[in-house]
């Protein structure tokens, strides 16, 4: 009973924490890319003369951008499948939002102590992307349809890598509970199976539509891709889902590969450093590359996912049958 109460309280606290973490990740991503591009980006401490106008800091700029959308008109196209069109953003948001409870935070297990929390988290993270595609496909816009089609092509590749990366870790740890995987004694999985870590990083690039794999949202080619017909609060929900997805993916990476960092809240500084390092690598991918053409992306991405997938699987066999057990 006390355990359940504790879990419920931590879950309640986790909602704003995850939200702000997601927003801060997006901020850091934007700030770092700006500095790479000789730009200023969202300012940390506002210029003195502009502070009375614009506030002391713009760290929460990604949140303001989302909140702004909730104050706007929300058009629904006549030619769309209205039920799916309206339900999709809610479902995508709910999936990305619920996933935060199944991924542990330092010292806070939440629901990740459940036996199949890895499976549940993976399904929720798949759902968050799938409902985005569904909404685009039902919007009736040719741009949305093309964006959805591109999304599906990439989706098929990275979901394969996602499943391989997740279950390779599960197999080696001998558990499907994320909390058990995350608090497992011994070497972190990053050292045991670095191929799986690279594979999951590739998946993150695809799932978060980081360049060179942002074909689905290519603004110069297909307007806004899946989001062309979305505006107002529905677009806001999608962006909120994206912020949560950002948090989810980074947290999942740490839970799977940097095992002891989640044992207690005292590991928080290490956790933060890990987050910054992961975001740094994501940003480097973003600023270093132009966007691929979809056909070339399929061959490039498919090749690397396949290579690291096979390497991961071989590593799992080695670890499972000759080394650990």
């Amino acid at each position, binding site marked *: 009973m006390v355990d359940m109460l504790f879990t419920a309280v931590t879950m309640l606290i986790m909602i704003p924490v995850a939200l702000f973490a997601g927003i801060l990740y997006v901020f850091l991503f934007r700030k770092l890319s700006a500095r790479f591009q000789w730009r200023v980006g969202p300012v940390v401490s506002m*210029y003195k003369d502009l502070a009375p*106008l614009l506030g002391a800091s713009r760290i929460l700029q990604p949140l303001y951008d989302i909140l702004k959308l909730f104050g706007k008109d929300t058009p629904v196209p*006549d030619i769309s499948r209205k039920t799916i069109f309206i339900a999709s953003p809610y479902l995508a948001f709910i999936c990305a939002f619920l996933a935060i409870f199944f991924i542990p935070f330092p010292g806070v297990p939440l629901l990740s102590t459940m036996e199949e929390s890895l499976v549940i988290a993976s399904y929720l993270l798949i759902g968050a992307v799938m409902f985005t595609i569904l909404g685009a496909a039902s919007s009736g816009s*040719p741009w949305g349809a093309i964006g959805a089609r591109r999304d599906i092509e990439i989706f098929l590749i990275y979901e394969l890598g996602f499943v391989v990366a997740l279950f390779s870790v599960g197999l080696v740890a001998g558990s499907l509970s994320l909390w058990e995987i995350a608090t497992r004694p011994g070497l972190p999985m990053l050292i045991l199976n670095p191929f799986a870590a690279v594979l999951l990083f590739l998946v993150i690039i695809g799932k978060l539509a980081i360049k060179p794999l942002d*074909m689905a949202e290519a603004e*110069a080619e297909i307007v806004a891709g899946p989001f062309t017909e979305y505006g107002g609060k529905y677009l806001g929900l999608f962006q909120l889902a994206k912020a949560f997805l950002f948090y989810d993916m980074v947290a999942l990476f740490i839970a799977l590969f940097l095992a002891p960092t989640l044992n207690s809240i005292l590991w928080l500084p290490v956790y933060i450093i890990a987050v910054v390092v992961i975001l740094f690598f994501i940003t480097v991918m973003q600023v270093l590359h*132009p966007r691929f*053409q979809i*056909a*070339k992306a399929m061959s490039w991405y498919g090749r690397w996912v396949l290579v690291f997938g096979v390497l991961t699987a071989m590593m799992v066999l080695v670890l499972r049958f000759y080394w650990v057990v």
Partner: protein
Amino acid sequence: MTTSTDPTIMEWLKTEVVPEGLEFKPLRENRVLVMVKPEDVDRLAERFVKKLGARLIHATGVDREQFGFDIVYVYDFSKAKNLVLVLEAHVDRDNPIIPSVGKVTWQAVWAEREIKEFLGINVAGMPDPRHQFLPYEWPKNPETGLPSDPSLYMPATTGVSPTSENWKPVGIDPKTARSSLLPIGPYHPGVIEGQTVYVRVEGEHVVDADIKTGYHHRGIHRLIERRGYNKGVFVSERVCGICSAAHGLAYVTCAENLYDAEIPERAQYIRTLLVELNRVHSHILWIGVAADLIGWKTGFMITWGLRERVMDIIEAITGNRVNYGIWRLGGVSRDVSQELAMKARQTIPGLKEALTQLIPAVVDHPVVKARVVGVGPLTFAQAFDGGAVGPVARASNWKIDTRRDNPPHAMYDPSKISWDIVVDDHCDMLGRTLVRAKETFVSIGIVDQCLAYLEKTAGEIRDKPKTIEPGSEAVGLNEAPRGELFYYMRAGGTDVPDYMMPEGKHNVQGSNLPQAVRIRTPSYRNNALIPQMLIGSALADVPIVMGSTDQCLACTDRVEVINDKTEESYTLSWEELVRMSQKRWRP
């Protein structure tokens, strides 16, 4: 400079090129005017283009009120002889009809659509009789009783009536559901300028394409015609914000060809300097835009950051960033002092080094290569028949450059300034990128040589104005960053309109107003080729192929800030803006 009175060329013209000519008149520089009968123009075009390897620069018309129209064809013979041929045919006002040259060469198609639309001349046998500037669906004159032209790409009946229950997106019809029609433009995030490209796609594959322009035709020719030669300098610079120097030079070259102008050498060097600086910043800008079109924001930001260094040099020399305001008939308005030239020259090595580091990084990037190699193919034959100009033509292995073929009054003589034409045989986006990247270095070399001259010498920068003889004609050519730029002018006698003159007499009183000014910009040619480059490519490549002919942007220099506390609005001064832009990102 000199009137082309080379007797061998005149003889060659009379015997081999245009034996049908009614009247031969040498114009200034290497231009010769020949009057022919209107029914001969298509036969002549076939001979010029197919047999003699000439190139149609532009076709246009001059309205001579009750005396009818003069149709003007300008051919470039520079591959055979040093000659620009101005072919004129007179048509009646009652029955203005002329055979189509467009059926001989695609180069004339857009020009003929324009003649038809602006002057109402019937062009017999046009391969593409649709509107050029008006919307395709624009109704016919009501008195004709004819229905409006159905567009080739917008069928008049889609089989779906537009009620709110069964409304379907444009062109999606169960019968044609295999493909869908995507309108890219008039305002689309990928293509900043107002133009529409209709692409019919099957999945990601473009099976058909069409381009519609005319969204911001401003009638600038007419503005110059109403304002006269001197004020025309001001207007012509405002045709384009990016290649304003090229327009200024082409205009003054054209106007100076109307009279005996002697441009001082120093002025010619300053003109060359500015046009080349303009080309450097335009090409760097294009590399940035191209990077943005393939989704590479970093490349965009860094190239535009480097471009600011070129803009600083331009600003130091002219005091302006966009419209330089330095062009005058007979010279330039401002001298470049020796001290300034020396200072500007010191910045050149640093700029060159930065570009040497940047450009290979852009061109050799593996993902950039994947996006440009084999994209938007344009063979030499297509480029020649379509009349491509500038970097687009040179990337298709066609060695044309107005600076070498028909140089304007600037120092492009190899004995004065050493430079070379850049050509490339990739015939695709990679070629166009490489040509522009290499041309940047060639232009920096020219700039360096001009500054070296200017820092050592001094002298006059402007010739005294002279009167313009009525009825004289001139062609001004210049290589803009995007390709060959063409101006045609006819000095008018519009003080006394022709209808007030005795029967058959043309007004020779003279005035300070031109009778006709015609401009053909390089993009006008290259944009006509976009559909050819698009068909067969992937949808993802549409923006970059459209961007491969280069684009223009406009910018403002003042910002209005509204204080949300007091609801006051105030305008930031230039000094404040400079101060804000120079402030570090952390105060």
